[in-house]
């Protein structure tokens, strides 16, 4: 479902699926929350390079992780979003709380 790596308390999450919908949202949520419990994580960076479809269930997962991490002062980034997924983020108003960058490097250097 996802791959992840941890560097300086920044959790990089990579989706193996191409569609982020309700069907995979549950698994993604559990997997990430397991990591948040067992490791020290400050910020989360979601790499959307494989995702070509996302609906409001995807928005729910990202907001959910944002709520967890922001209460401890952390931030959420999304990188490599396709124009279509960008449109969904924009419509949801999430672009006000989530940081959207073109690349992983830009996200990290903004920290």
């Amino acid at each position, binding site marked *: 479902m996802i791959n992840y790596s941890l560097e300086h308390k920044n959790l990089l999450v990579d989706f193996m699926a191409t569609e982020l919908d*309700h069907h995979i949202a*549950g698994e993604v949520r559990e997997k990430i929350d397991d990591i948040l419990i067992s490791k020290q994580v400050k910020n989360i960076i979601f790499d959307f390079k494989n995702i070509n479809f996302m*609906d*409001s269930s995807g928005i*729910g997962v990202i907001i959910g992780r944002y709520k967890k991490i922001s209460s401890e002062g952390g931030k959420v980034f999304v990188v490599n979003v396709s124009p279509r997924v960008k449109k969904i983020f924009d*419509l949801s108003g999430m672009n006000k709380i989530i940081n959207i960058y073109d690349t992983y490097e830009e996200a990290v250097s903004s920290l």
Partner: protein
Amino acid sequence: MMSNIMEVKFSAKSENESLARVIVASFAAKLDPTLDELADIKTAVSEAVTNSIIHGYEEDESKLVYLRCKILDDTIKIVVEDRGKGIEDVDIAMQPLYTSKPELERSGMGFTFMESFMDDVKVSSIKNEGTKVVMTKKINLPK
């Protein structure tokens, strides 16, 4: 006049959300939509089908979701229906960010997305009988 109809019903399993998107996209493809129009349709269908599964049937996989599509000239009409628990107050349910299941991390944006991506969305629901979402979108033939 060009016309074509398709009716589908499938188990209320979350793995069938992607199936519903593929089915509607292949059906709609006959109108020769742009990729963006196709993505709009897929998103709206995904929202309505997900709602039937989560809210209508509360993930009871033995239940069925009903999906009907009709092409008439350059317009596609999509109906998503369930025989689930229904909506008490449709106006409240359709407000942006309203969700009855925050514990499932629902964003409350489902109806908003349907309305953003389709030309017209009508919802009718009867408590304990089910919910029907009727959406239409005109595909602009001359590109």
